[in-house]
């Protein structure tokens, strides 16, 4: 019998036969985008260290990906990854984690990694909610939405992550939704080839928790919402703020060259060694 094998199965640990995501979750789309990017760049899993925090999204690489994988504490993957990258500057160090993990409890590490321009590729899964813990308000939850911790509607304003990380100093920042898998794959490829800190914000659906809280419905409805509300950044720049309310600005927010931290360390150590001789 010839069983059909998924073309990306080769990137998964053989003994892992199922994922932990709910049906319809956007994590599957992001998983494929990450693995397609790796395949299209012709990279090997041995070239990678994957680092994740705590949350549904943090389980994307752990334990699924057949590579060195560091599944860390809540909010800290970027801090762990900083040590990994400085110890193994020649490897691709990719962080995959959620919006709560990376911008609430771990927000400080994220902005500082961008400031340092350390060569990490961060895939940030923004589902606008705390999925794993049962649908609490995240710093990304749109104002007014009722969650289990904002039952009268969230009174707070939400983060606009991509531009925030541009201001913090990242070399590459892009945002796409799970309705844009091809653009997303391309952005991850660019992030992986960028020498410097790269953030790919993935606006994704959590049909179980966010779907219920936002009353948007299931995966298909949320994806349709992404489709009809996404605005390319080039176009958004010409629109006035009032028009952009409730829209999801997608595209590349920054793509610049600047000295990357781990190679700066390699250079410094090298020059000191030369100096001594």
């Amino acid at each position, binding site marked *: 019998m010839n069983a059909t094998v998924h073309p990306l199965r080769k990137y998964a*640990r*053989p*003994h892992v036969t199922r994922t932990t995501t709910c049906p319809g979750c956007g994590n599957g789309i992001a998983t494929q985008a990450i693995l397609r990017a790796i395949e299209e760049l012709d990279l090997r*899993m*041995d070239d990678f*260290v994957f*680092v994740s925090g705590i949350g549904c999204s943090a389980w994307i690489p*752990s*334990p699924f990906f*057949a*590579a*060195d*994988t*560091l*599944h*860390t*504490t809540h909010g*800290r993957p970027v*801090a*762990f*990854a*900083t*040590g*990994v*990258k*400085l*110890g*193994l500057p*020649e*490897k691709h160090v990719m962080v995959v984690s959620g919006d709560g993990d990376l911008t609430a409890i771990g927000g*400080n*590490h994220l902005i*500082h990694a961008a400031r340092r321009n350390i060569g990490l590729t961060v895939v940030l899964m923004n589902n606008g909610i705390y999925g794993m813990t049962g649908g609490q308000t995240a710093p990304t939850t749109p104002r007014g939405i009722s969650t289990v911790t904002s039952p009268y509607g969230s009174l707070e304003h939400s983060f606009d992550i991509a531009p925030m990380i541009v201001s913090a100093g990242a070399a590459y920042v892009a945002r796409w939704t799970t309705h844009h898998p091809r653009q997303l794959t391309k952005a991850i490829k660019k992030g992986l080839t960028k020498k410097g800190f790269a953030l790919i914000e993935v606006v994704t659906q959590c049909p179980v928790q966010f779907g219920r809280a936002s009353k948007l419905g299931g995966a298909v409805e949320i994806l349709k919402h992404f489709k009809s509300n996404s605005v390319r950044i080039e176009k958004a720049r010409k629109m006035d703020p009032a028009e952009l309310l409730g829209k999801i600005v997608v595209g590349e927010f920054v793509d610049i060259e600047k000295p990357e931290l781990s190679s700066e*360390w390699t250079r*410094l*150590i090298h020059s*000191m*060694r030369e100096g*001594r001789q």
Partner: protein
Amino acid sequence: MIKARTALAGTHFDMGNWACAEGAIAAGCNFVAGYPITPASEVANYMAKRLPQVGGIFLQTEDEIAAICSVIGASWAGCRALTVTSGPGISLMQENIGFAVSTETPIVIIDVQRLGPSTGVPSIGMAGDIVQVARGSHGDYQIIALCPESPQEMFDLTIRAFNIAETYRVPVFLMADGFIGHMREQIIIPPADQIDLVERRVPTVADPMKRQDFLDIGVAPMPVFGKGLQAHVTSSCHDEHGMRNLTEPAVMHRYVMNPIQKILTHRDQIVEVREDYVNADLVLVTYGTVSRSARAAARLARNQGLRVGTLRLITCWPFPEEAIRKAASRVNNLLVLENNSGQLYPYIRAEAAHASRVEFLGPQFLGQIHDPNAILEKVKEMLA
């Protein structure tokens, strides 16, 4: 065993914090992350200058949480990694100290203790963290902590801390304080070829499902990153291969107990004490800086014909219960001296009170070094 690559061999006169930093360099440390804090800053400041000279990296992090996390990440990347802080920083690190315990990550944590609670007094030493380093992270675990009493020992025990960390794949604490951190004394650094270093064992089998990477009481080789070993490292409950398992009670039991047993079954190799109480009627039990006052007090007492000895705990964790029981079985009076309100005292009493009288004496003012004469007074009272 391998030999140290570099060491500033010779006789020096410098601070304990300097000795600690040079000890780390001699031990092959090549990654340090930290956040400035008195009275520990000199270690980080000096490392920032010294490490690049020997091919290492110093990272000033955004906080102590990032310091401990990046040090653990660097250890998995194959580095010999260290972080240095004081009590407030340890408090912030606690969650991820548990991560290092659970993932069996060798790192060294220097705690140059200061007076607390909270922000307290930055420049005054105190032994306020001695229990929090062993019990401060949530869940159940064992820790290893060494207590130097001099700048020389800040050098020697930093090397020992790295060797223990690599031997058992554990985080190891060096519990200094503001006094010996800032104290200047003679420090003798031996030539590099006289310093033995434990080398990290790394597995050779490529498939993690065919290896034991974790939960080996006899210490598993460490599947460091970047060698194609496909290591899976998580502090969530995991099995011997490092794979998350949140369903099986037997795995949960091993996940908690085996790292504990790994330390306890090697207690004899880890624990180090100094005993000097033959024929004594009273023994002064101490660790760290206070040991200096205890020795001075014992000398004063002996000059007055009182038979007073000393027992110094160089390893405070795992708790040296055997050494305490032995002292209690041979000497009728134990006087515990600590620069705090009596943090190890209950642990010592639990091992000793069945066999001898056990009392406690703090310094007259917490944070000040015990006056040997005050110790002598208390000794006389107990022996009266």
